[in-house]
């Protein structure tokens, strides 16, 4: 059988980056073909090339045996290639039906034939088992349904090949299972799917074949039934992965951080945190596991003074920090590695030197009155840059010009240097290269061993399991359980993350 789609020797360059280097991919009809690799491996670039959003410097694409010259998404759509983007491409203020027909609207006279549109949407939804409310506005429907709308958009346009870009990132385990069923139903009816992810378990569960990318290069294509997690991991990172972090026996002190019945709203005014309680002892790392969007972000924001809580208590050393300002909380020696360093942790157009005092800029020795002390700023930078191995070693470089790992090191240097009592690290290794990950893990453990309280929020279960002493699992704004890290497995946490419970057995830490 001929493949329905072939990408041959695709090379795509961006200024300073080789995003795709001579990559091959083929797809057969009715197949689920997984495309895996670490963040930044070039998966999304390759798919954007296929979808006509980028023009590759070299390489050819064949579809149903014909060489393609795709210029823009419109061409790809007309050929029957549909893409479900990681960040949904939906207009929140329009209805589900309007979003689906956008760009190829059924008409009656000059008008949009909205009845026909709704009927068509419902027909497609029934055929593939994708339940949606055609007349609801997209901003009012849950994330899982938004994803189904995205898939329907592609099907409405007659997609034969569907590209799903990290479709599970925003879903609960049950919703993921529902998505798998949809994917199977689609392939049974002759559609072919390219499934982009970096989660190995998902790949092994659902795909037929797997292509691995690493640093822009195609490492190889394997048949799912003939491989295993370990082999895939090795292909992805290029060496045996050390999931076990070496860590010393914990030496817990007194309770430093006490949070009880903390509640808060999210940006849309809906309850995002519902009566959350936990304690962290000196010398302890409490991990927070959970599918993203279950209140972790809001929890961290409340604890760092970036969001107002609606109820509860929050004490450090017995002193209340409840609804204090970000500045007051910093002054109480709470350090914060934020989830999104571009949005929160750095002023990208400030120099490394200026970023190294962000949040502390108004204090001695960096300022006297309203005057900045430039000598002390320089000295501070000259000390921290080598100590935290920030490269390039240039305090006057703009933070923007540094790599992700080095940007994260600026934040780590700044937050750790002032001797925190309570360290809040949110997704500390996201989008950071392997070397920097190890460095950051080591530094976090050092803080723990020095007797600090650490709250670690991470979407990477292996990271949470290997670094934490105890793990709290969040689901829909609540902590459903707190388990001992030593007894935690991905399976157990997975059940909790889906809102399930473990009957007895595991110690409840709080």
């Amino acid at each position, binding site marked *: 059988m001929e493949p329905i789609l072939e990408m041959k020797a695709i090379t795509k360059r961006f200024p300073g980056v080789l995003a795709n280097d001579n990559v091959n991919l083929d797809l057969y009809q009715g197949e689920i073909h997984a495309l895996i690799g670490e963040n930044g491996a070039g998966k999304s670039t390759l798919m954007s090339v296929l979808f006509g959003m980028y023009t590759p410097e070299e390489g050819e694409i064949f579809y149903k045996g014909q060489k393609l010259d795709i210029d823009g*998404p419109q061409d790809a*759509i007309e050929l029957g290639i549909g893409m479900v983007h990681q*960040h949904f*491409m939906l207009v*929140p203020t*329009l209805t589900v039906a309007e979003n689906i027909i*956008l*760009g190829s609207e059924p008409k009656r006279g000059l008008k949009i034939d909205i009845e026909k549109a709704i009927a068509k949407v419902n027909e497609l939804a029934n055929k593939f088992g994708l339940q949606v409310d055609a007349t609801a506005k997209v901003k009012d429907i849950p994330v899982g349904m938004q994803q189904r709308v995205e898939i329907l*958009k592609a099907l409405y346009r007659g997609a034969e090949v569907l590209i799903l870009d990290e479709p599970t990132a925003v879903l609960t385990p049950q919703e993921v299972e529902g998505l798998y069923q949809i994917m199977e139903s689609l392939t049974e009816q002759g559609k072919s799917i390219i499934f982009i992810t970096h989660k190995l378990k998902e790949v092994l569960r659902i795909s037929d074949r797997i292509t691995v990318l690493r640093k822009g290069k195609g490492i190889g294509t394997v048949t799912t039934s003939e491989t295993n997690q370990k082999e895939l991991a090795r292909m992805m990172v290029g060496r045996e992965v050390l999931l076990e972090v070496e860590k010393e026996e914990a030496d817990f002190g007194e309770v430093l951080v006490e949070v009880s019945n903390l509640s808060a709203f999210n940006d849309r005014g809906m309850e995002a945190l519902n009566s959350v309680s936990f304690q962290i002892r000196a010398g302890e790392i409490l991990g927070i596991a959970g599918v993203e969007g279950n209140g972790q972000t809001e929890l961290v924001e409340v604890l760092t003074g970036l969001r107002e809580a609606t109820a509860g208590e929050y004490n450090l050393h017995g002193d209340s920090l409840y609804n204090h300002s970000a500045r007051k909380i910093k002054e109480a020696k709470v350090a914060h590695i934020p989830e999104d360093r571009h949005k929160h942790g750095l002023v990208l157009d400030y120099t490394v030197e200026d970023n190294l005092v962000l949040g502390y800029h108004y204090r001695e020795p960096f300022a006297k009155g309203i005057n900045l002390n430039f000598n002390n700023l320089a000295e501070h930078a000259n000390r921290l840059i080598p100590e935290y191995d920030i490269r390039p070693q240039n305090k006057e470089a703009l933070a923007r010009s540094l790599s992700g790992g080095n940007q994260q090191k600026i934040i780590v240097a700044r937050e750790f240097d002032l001797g925190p009592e309570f360290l809040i690290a949110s997704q500390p290794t996201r989008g950071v290269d392997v070397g920097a990950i190890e460095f950051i893990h080591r530094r976090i453990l050092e803080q723990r061993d020095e007797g600090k309280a650490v709250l670690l929020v991470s979407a990477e279960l292996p990271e949470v399991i290997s670094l934490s002493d105890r793990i709290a699992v969040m689901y829909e704004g609540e902590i459903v359980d707190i388990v001992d890290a030593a007894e935690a497995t991905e399976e157990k946490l997975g059940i909790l993350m889906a809102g399930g419970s473990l009957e007895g057995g595991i110690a409840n830490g709080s």
Partner: protein
Amino acid sequence: MEILTQIFSLETLSSTLRMATPLAIAAIGGLYSERSGIINIALEGLMLAGAFIAVVVSYFTGIPWLGLLGALVFGGLFAMIHAVVSIKYHADQVVSGVAINMLAAGGTVFMLNIIFNTSGTSESVNALPYWGPFKPTVYIGLLVVFIAHYVLFKTPFGLRVRSVGEHPHAADSVGIDVEKIRYICVGISGILAGLAGAHLSLGVLDSFREGMTAGRGFIALAAMIFGKWTPFGALGASLLFGFSQAVQIRLQGLGIPTEFVQMIPYIFTIIALAGVIGKSTPPTAIGEPFEKGKR
């Protein structure tokens, strides 16, 4: 009581409609542009240019209808400067709007000097005829509002315009040409602002006077915002603001200074933006240049 009957007399109501016409037309122009994601504070300048061209064409041809046509064409072309600078060169749309206004203010007087050899008021030209109680532009203006509602909310083009203004990358991902939609919408805004200007110079008057729009472009902008970026909302706000202009003189008789009445549209708009009477929220992607591939 007597003053109330005076205020709500037939004469005031027809004068309200006359005053509201340029506001509504220009507001609808602004609406197309802003719904597609391009801020348009250039309405004032576009109107002024339209008013001027209308008089010039009528002066040279003697046919006011050609003047009107000239205002539409030139308004659309003039707006293309705003479009190219904002869309192609990603300039700050507010800055570009300011520059259009400045160019129109300077350019019209410059040309007034060249053509009419004065800095004040042009010669009188043939104005538009009356159709019944009103000038044709009043009827056209009402038509423009209804057409805008139909186009924006019932047609594929309107759906695309709204999607481009709210989430251009979503529109792009289904093959909609975001830039093309924006060029068209900014063009329409120029055409309509030109029409509004022609109403002033060939409908209300029969000549061009320096700076004759006197802030009406900004009142139109206010009407568009106060009307929550919808055609009928903009019409309602224009009528309200037109009414406040129409009764100014009468209210002065009651001891209310005209200056305070003049402030009404602006104060209302600030109140509407503050959300005191139902928050007025602009299209999400407004003011942001569109760059393919970025999000």
